[in-house]
């Protein structure tokens, strides 16, 4: 466990609240742990990688670092994958890697208290339950809290080479 996550857990335990970056994929709103987010940038200059799954859009240059760009909308068939001025890439730091995820829009950063976080329902969500921490309740909005680290390092994302290779 990295220091950042350890710290974040302590904070979470002490105050019961945690900060999330909220973004949208199609009509749904998702939130990821803000401590995993490195930066947000536009979708541009992505070099396609041949023979890769379609949701891996390719790699981009992030100040000299080569970063893979993943489109979750394609992977989980969440929405039409359009790329326009609004399309944003959230660059996250997970498992000592840097990965960009394409989202339709980033809305804001929110603090959710323990009471505002609910366990995820057994079904009815677009993302597999394995990658979901729970649901966030904010007034009349429902946020799907995504375990981005677990999601991106999962085998089905094909981002990380399996161990032993």
């Amino acid at each position, binding site marked *: 466990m990295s220091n950042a996550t350890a710290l974040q857990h302590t904070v979470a335990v002490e105050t019961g609240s945690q900060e999330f970056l909220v973004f949208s994929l199609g009509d749904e709103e998702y939130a990821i742990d803000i401590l995993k987010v490195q930066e947000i940038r536009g979708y541009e200059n992505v070099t396609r990688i041949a023979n890769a799954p379609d949701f891996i859009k390719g*790699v981009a*240059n992030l*100040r000299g670092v080569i970063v893979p760009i993943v489109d979750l909308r394609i992977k989980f068939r969440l929405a039409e994958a359009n790329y326009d001025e609004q399309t944003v890439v959230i660059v996250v730091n997970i498992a000592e890697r840097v990965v960009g995820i394409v989202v339709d829009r980033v809305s804001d950063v929110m603090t959710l208290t323990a009471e505002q976080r609910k366990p995820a329902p057994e079904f009815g969500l677009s993302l597999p339950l394995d990658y979901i921490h729970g649901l966030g309740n904010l007034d009349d909005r429902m946020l799907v809290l995504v375990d981005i680290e677990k999601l991106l390092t999962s085998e089905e994302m094909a981002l990380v*080479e399996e161990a032993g290779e």
Partner: protein
Amino acid sequence: MDITDFYDTFFEEADELLAEMETHLLDLDVDQPDQERLNAIFRAAHSIKGGAGTFGFEALQRTTHLLENLLDHARRGELQLRRDIVDTFLEAKDMLNDQLDAYRQGGEPDPEALERICETLRRLALEEIGESADVEGAGAAASGAATAPAPAPETAAPAPAGGRFRVALLGVADKDRNLLIEELGQLGDIEGQDGDDTEYRVTLKSSLSADDIEAVMCFVVEPEQLSIQALSAPDDGGDPQPDEESGAGAVAEQSAVQAKSAGEETAAAAPRADADTDSRARAAPKKAAKPQAAGESTSIRVPVAKVDQIINLVGELIITQSMLNQVAEDSDTVKDGALVTGLNLLQRTARDLQEAVMSVRMVPMDYVFSRFPRLVRDLAGKLGKDVELVTEGKSTELDKGLTERIIDPLTHLVRNSLDHGIETPDRREAAGKPRTGQLTLSAQHQGGNILIEVADDGGGLNRERILAKARSSGLAVSDAMGDDEVWQLIFAPGFSTAEEVSDVSGRGVGMDVVKRNIQAMGGHVEILSKPGQGTTTRIVLPLTLAILDGMSIRVGREMFILPVSAVIESLQPGADDLYSLAGGDTLLKVREDYLPVVAVHHAMDVAGAITDPTRAIAVIVQGEGRRYAVLVDDLVGQQQVVVKNLETNYRKVPGVSAATILGDGSVALILDVSDLHRLAQSKKDNRIFGNVSQLVEEVEPS
């Protein structure tokens, strides 16, 4: 290049190793020492000793040698550690620091301090392990033991200068012996000599101290092979020669001799005082010279990551600058003279900056190779072997970060080749080989890797001996193991088939360290060996940090980079030269050869590319020994590119070795010539069976 060019590097490395040693020593739990930690401490001492030997820093080598011996016992569990022992180790480490500083400033370490620490270490070895730390210690340890009865230890510590000495050479071969005797003859008058190969005694009258004599001799023989004893009076040359094997007893006897000599020769005090002032006089000018020479090292050691960051940022700066230029050119506003001048200036400075930063990292392999001629010469001389060193690919450029880290493993490999690989001239002759052995160091870029080879034409590895040794060390082995597997055994920690431990090699730390270091760089080591024909150790390093001469090619609207080293030629194929085969293969006739054709647009799934081969350009490439033609739309240009590892944040991509960043800030993939062919092949096979994606998946984990 001159060997002194590498002093700074050695000092820096040694500083780091010492710091590491200290950390480990401080963290060491004496009751339950961590084996890894002990190994690390030992390896640090071993590495420093090796370097000190190479550069002829004799005091440093002696001290580390003694320390290393103790550490070796400690890591084998033969020396029960205590707090005060660790304290002594730390003291020794501090002393090594002082010695390094002295050498760094172009001086010699304080000889008294050297004696003191050597004596401390020897005494520790004597008390704790019951053996003198090294056989040479027998003579010197005597002076150590003598400190107990002697009331004033400091007078006993420096060996008396001048007088008569009994110099015993232990197990020195004829050839070296004559050399040594000749050498001794220059140090003083030889009054008598006799003995045989196992022990040869020379009585020498000299104005030098025993230490000085030893220092000279150590260039030729190991300290263990030497025993120097001061003789009290000219006529008691018949003193019984102490038996080296009897250890402590002999030492006690010697100390008696020493004490006697100290007691009887009251007059010796005077010459000793003389010698002291003499040595002080010699030391004085050195001390005076220090302030000028006090050159703190003229280089700064910077973590590669920091340099990487600067390179990345400079790259961004260049891109931003081109963008500004574009804006200025496109803009309709009145061309402002000052703006244009400013932009031009910015462009020039940015380019210069980029070049400067790049040059920080790149050095030719010559930087590494040029330290070996001396090493090979010295070692070969020491071992009585004739060896010719051949270096190839000296101009292959390699990232400094890698060159620095490859030096230690290469040194170990070269030592191994000389010590165990290449045979003595007589044995070579008997085997029908030229008397002079050949050691080849080579470097080249290949298939997305850098390949560094250490090849000797010696006896090759001994399969049976490795297996036997592995069994006795408790490793799981079987006779059915393939040669490759057997060779890999020598990388096990503590593995050595050498019967004797020398300061050249044979402690079994070498290969263990080699493998660790190379794996830490993301590379791997292979051994190829044929009995009687020699051994080649091949180090394959990924390109991560390297710079590549790249040829930019365009396919459709995408850009790729082909390593120039793989490109043989390019041509426009004529319809007459193309031959289609059943099964979808195409062959291209180039002069007399028929080469398979791989279209990049097919292998890399590029849309909108030229599909008619006669309108495309064929680039003839060579990868893994086979030649084939790569079809591309256009050749764009040739440039040096910084290789970026795709695996850092992503994974291995079939047909691609790495990526780079182009002038416009976009990423271009560097094609892996050998893998591209395989990829094209597997895609073609798939097409026949109609399931493309699945087989491609299977190719990936290669």
